[in-house]
């Protein structure tokens, strides 16, 4: 914590002095000129003369020390204890779409457990011909698939319902990651246990091996359609904090359903109505009634830079506005960006063809001359859904929903390049 704080304040100071220094050099029109030769170029530097690290210096590498502030962060006042808590992906500092596992957010209900492949068992029971037990080695022998999917916690942006609160994209939108999973379709495993073939009215209850025994009921149709038992993420074994050695993947649906350390799947005639699908992950409306089974994550986007943790530190001229968009209904088709708080919009460039239920990166390559911006982004998906404003959401749901806040976010970029989380009319 202490080092995090130091790193953050150092970067703030750096920003203030750095912006002034660089700004002076580049404001002039045309090609900038240096007053004196750059010693980094004219003098032989240590790294250009001596050795760097040999191979094997770091058998499994971590990011270079200069990037040590690109880390997950926790908001301490949110929860009573880190054992049952959440932290946030540093989305402000990332680019592209794949989230490195080491900084992908964590959410545990009873801590991240150490469960070895040798000790791992997956049971399938309930309405099947034969209740079965699979070892991890068994799982590796089933045909498997690769898919990239986003995982968003239903509570992402949840602290912003009542107003602009946390000053940084990491904190407002960082309960999300996007990984490439290698896993076995759930339908393959259910078939192996002799599932009857009956779908209507059937549910699959899935639970984890940790002490929280987190379990969720999933309509069997969804489980058969695209759910996976993932054994790898981004090419390597799942990290402990993401459910090593196996987790459930529920594409497009809220993160709590992606049961980690998955140990049992049971075909049932109805939902269990477990704690996490009744007392939590239900959305209370203004009149006090609550929505349940709100599983799909609707289309959403956020500008990750500039943003409060990513101020503009260079002078006027070219600037890249970037962010990410996603939809639990399928593919994002378009992202628009507004610099004036939603009066006018321009369509951003998508970095690659959008994939199904996966993050897409967008860019708006533009110019900045020190004017203030009220930066917003707005995603559309293939169902024609347009990401709503906070006012639109509140109109329907009130202020107490907590979950599924997919509103348009506003960053106020000031003339000095700093940015702040604000709400606008």
């Amino acid at each position, binding site marked *: 914590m202490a080092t995090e704080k130091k790193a953050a304040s150092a970067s703030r100071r750096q920003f203030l002095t750095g912006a002034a220094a660089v700004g002076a050099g580049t404001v002039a029109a045309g090609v900038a000129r240096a007053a004196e030769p750059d010693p980094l170029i004219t003098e032989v530097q240590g790294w250009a003369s001596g050795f760097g690290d040999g191979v094997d210096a770091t058998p499994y590498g971590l990011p270079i020390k200069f990037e040590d502030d690109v880390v997950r962060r926790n908001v301490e006042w949110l929860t009573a204890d880190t054992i049952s808590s959440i932290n946030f992906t540093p989305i402000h500092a990332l680019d592209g779409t794949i989230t490195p596992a080491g900084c992908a957010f964590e959410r545990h209900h009873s801590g991240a457990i150490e469960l070895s492949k040798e000790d791992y068992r997956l049971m399938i029971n309930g309405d099947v011909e034969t209740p079965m037990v699979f070892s991890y080695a068994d799982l590796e022998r089933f045909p498997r698939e690769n898919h990239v999917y986003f995982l968003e916690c239903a509570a992402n942006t949840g602290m912003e319902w009542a107003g602009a609160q946390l000053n940084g994209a990491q904190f407002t939108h960082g309960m999300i990651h996007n990984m490439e999973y290698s896993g076995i379709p759930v339908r393959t495993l259910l078939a192996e246990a002799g599932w009857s073939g009956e779908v209507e009215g059937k549910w699959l209850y899935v639970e984890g091996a940790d002490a929280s025994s987190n379990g969720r009921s999933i309509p069997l149709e969804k489980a058969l359609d695209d759910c996976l038992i993932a054994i790898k993420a981004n090419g390597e074994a799942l990290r402990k904090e993401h459910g090593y050695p196996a987790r459930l993947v529920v594409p497009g649906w809220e993160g709590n359903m992606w049961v980690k350390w998955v140990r049992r799947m049971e075909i049932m005639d109805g939902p269990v109505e477990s704690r996490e699908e009744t007392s939590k992950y239900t959305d209370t409306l203004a009149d006090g009634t609550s929505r349940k089974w709100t599983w799909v994550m609707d289309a959403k986007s956020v500008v990750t830079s500039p943003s409060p943790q990513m101020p503009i530190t260079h002078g006027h001229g070219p600037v890249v506005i970037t962010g990410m968009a996603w939809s639990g209904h399928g593919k994002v088709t378009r992202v628009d960006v507004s610099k004036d708080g939603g009066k006018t919009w321009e369509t951003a460039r998508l970095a690659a063809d959008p994939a199904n239920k996966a993050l897409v990166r967008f860019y708006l390559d533009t110019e900045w001359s020190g004017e203030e911006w009220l930066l917003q982004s707005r995603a559309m998906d293939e169902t024609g*859904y347009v990401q709503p404003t906070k006012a639109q959401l509140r109109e329907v749901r009130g202020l107490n929903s907590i979950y599924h806040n997919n509103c348009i976010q506003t960053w106020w970029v000031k003339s000095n390049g700093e940015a702040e989380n604000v709400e606008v009319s």
Partner: protein
Amino acid sequence: MSKSLKLYAGTAIGILGTLTLAVNFADRFVADFPENPRTMAALPATQVEPVAEAPSGVLIGAATAATTDGGGTFGLGRAALPEEVAAWDLDVSPDGTGLPAGSGDVWTGETVFEENCAVCHGSFAEGVDNWPKLAGGDGTLADEDPLKTVGSYWPYLSTVWDYVHRSMPFGNAQSLSADEVYAITAYILYSNDLVDDDFELSDANFAEFEMPNADGFIIDDRAETEYSLWRAEPCMENCKESVEITMRATVLDVTPDHGGTEATEEAEASTGEQEAEVEEVAAVAEEAVPAAEEAPAEAAPVETAAIDAALAAEGEKVFRKCKACHQVGEGAKNRTGPELNGVVGREIAAVGDFKYSKTLAEMGGVWDSEALHGFLGDPRGYAKGTKMAFAGLKKAEDIDAVVEYLKTFE
């Protein structure tokens, strides 16, 4: 069957079990969103995927092949033994399916709750610090700040039983007997004024009990209330006349990286409770910084009294019961209880920024073996008035072990 149908009528989730349903679903789109033909064309292609034609083709073959010995298409895995299924299949459904035989009354529940739950949830289930409140909040769900508790919010009693049985107590899950869980559940109902003090809950009367907010839930209706409004071509120019900033995050500055000093001065009074917590966090953080910076200088091993590693390892297991409230090790902070680095041999009530009970604050002496055995064996007997709502470690060897474990943190 009917549940499933309602479900899919009510949500726009695109996975459909049968063609009939899929057609219904597509029809709904045609009716609701005729202005967007591009979208409609795209939808059926991705969403209408009858299960019987699942891409791998594995499904049908397996379903029939499995009628033999449970060895499906691949012949992998093995049949689960009945004892194994019984050990893991513990979930309890709203109609009581899955409940074991047993019973427990309110008064037994009070004792069990005090020993196992009150440390976090309070003696009357009213919650301690940021831990969940289990009682109260009746009639607040439509308020500005609803209090969602078992009594005011949870729709099914089965959820309480199932959760307590499988997931509680925090840090020592699956340690309660069925009768204890019935008793705790009865006590939670009593704390919410839902039963009288002579109430006994059992598998026989469980299903009769209806929770007050059972009818307070509706199935996801976003398809009707939201998608129908927001699937429309968006405005690109002159979308509004003026834009004003109506709220700023730096006014209510609760963002961790900024520390607390500059922020809390400006904070508005309207979010009192939250601010109090933030100030606490900020105060802890400030204290932590110098401590962490000084640490390397002091890190030289001053004393290496022989530690019984095996005993300490046992103690680490015992310490799980303490972890919900006490931290040890690098970066340990005060939580519900004080951090315990160096507690063995230290003066009683010595952590400066922890608010001890009057009893401990005025007790004097040091935490030597005798004092630790006395206190940990019977906290409230040894120090009447202590805030530590822990029943105590019954076995002396557990205390020996946990003390040995604590010695490893200087």
